[in-house]
């Protein structure tokens, strides 16, 4: 799934940065909302649900774009374990981006909550009401959120390492605008 391009395609880069904002917001909203009893709680929950579904839709579009466009090759001089970690992290990101909203949706369904997106727009239930399923999904949603945030921190640290220390062009493959200072 590599391509001869040196950068991800424009729609891929656009989605990457849009989703970066959405997902980081989502994780902060998630940990914030479960730790407050102020009216902010309701506002955050009301953002969390439609934003989660938006992320699901964007992730599926992004997956299709990835299959269609592929990805630029990693630098040839990158050690094999680093290449493996880079590739693996991408699979995990896709898995999380798609599974987290689905787990959240399923969790609400199993708890018999209406899944309201906004106003009168709501989604159907995707699971029967079940305390045991709800418990399982709730724990998964909670733990995977922290795993997701941890993975993002590693991702940020890694890309800064590539940019600031190796300056090997990996950052440029996803940079929102063309940057200079790239080695040949």
């Amino acid at each position, binding site marked *: 799934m590599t391509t001869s391009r040196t950068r991800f395609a424009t729609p891929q880069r656009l989605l990457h940065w849009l989703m970066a904002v959405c997902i980081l917001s989502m994780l*902060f909203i998630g940990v914030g909302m479960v730790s407050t*009893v102020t009216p902010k709680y309701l506002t955050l929950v009301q953002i969390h649900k439609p934003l989660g579904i938006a992320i699901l839709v964007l992730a599926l579009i992004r997956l299709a774009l990835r299959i269609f466009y592929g990805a630029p090759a990693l630098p040839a001089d990158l050690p094999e374990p680093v290449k493996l970690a880079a590739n693996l992290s991408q699979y995990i990101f896709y898995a999380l981006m798609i599974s987290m909203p689905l787990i959240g949706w399923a969790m609400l369904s199993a708890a018999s909550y209406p899944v309201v997106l906004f106003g009168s727009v709501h989604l159907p239930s995707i699971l029967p009401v079940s305390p045991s399923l709800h*418990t399982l999904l709730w724990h998964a949603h909670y733990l995977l959120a922290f795993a997701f945030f941890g993975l993002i921190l590693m991702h940020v640290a890694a890309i800064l390492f590539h940019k600031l220390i190796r300056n*090997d062009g990996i950052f440029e493959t996803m940079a929102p605008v063309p940057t200079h200072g790239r080695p040949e």
Partner: protein
Amino acid sequence: MIQSPASSKSIRPGPLVVIAAVVGVAAIGFAYTAGWLSPHRLTPKKLVSALAPPGGPALGHRRNHAKGICFTGTFEANGDGSALSKAQVFLRGQYPVVGRFNLGTAEANAADAMVRVRGLGISITTPDGQQWRSAMIDAPIFPVSTPQDFYELLTASASKDPDAMKNFIASHPGFTTFLGWAKNGTWTGSYAEERYNSLDSFLFVEGSGTKHPIRWSLIPAAQPVPISPEELAKRGPDYLEQEIAQRVAAGAQHWSLVITVANPGDPTADPNQAWPPDRRAVTVGTLTVQQIEPERDGPCRDINFDPTVLPAGITTSDDPVPAARSAAYSRSYNSRTAEASYYPRTETGAKQ
């Protein structure tokens, strides 16, 4: 300008500091948002823990209003509510209801006569798939004004300090109104004879977008018959559940749903303050309770009567309490569903 590691083994410390700083700031921001750096923040966890009786929470049960019994029935709208709210539930018609009569206690096995507050939870589903959930109580006002005050009330009432309640009342004079009702209000011998009040204020939204601050009450058709708590105690610890089951088996029970519309300036943000009695009241329909079922295997068991589950046409107002109730009810629900084995169903195969 920038060295390549391929050509140099030495890594300058500057970039590493930048990386550590970026990751560190993000992690600290996350920890702050999660409340880990704010031990004084009133979290759902703290609020729910404060509800627990001295022996710990009743595992598998709601963390408050732990003792209850399910019912099913209908809400029949007369159409008059449509002048105030666009919600489908107010269009003339009949909509299914799942509900729960309950006692305002964290003890699942409390004796009826020991519990002053009685409640009713309902969930009304309309054909458009929306739900209106509400959890009401028979007190005319909420004991306090804010979630923080409620937490302080729970803390004071659980305190070993003999002056704790005295100090709480001195700093929260609004609580005396509630105490007046608790001491002098009428006790009845039936869930069917109680009036249940929303206490909190909500907004009804018309199709045009016009908003009306409102509260609501369910007014019983049954005539309340006063009874002393001593007399109620003699009838047994679970008399209320036995009575409502027999009563409904003999005939459906009814309540009128009455919407009270605030005048400008009424205290919508304070559930501890009643509105003057002359406010416009609109009867919008009738709740009919048709069948009682024990909670253990009943249809209300897995429902969280979160008062912020509202159809389009009803929203929360500037009253700060529903948000806190929603946050706390959610925590209670997550805890009790994870403890289902402590409160097993009796029906085989009822559980997934």
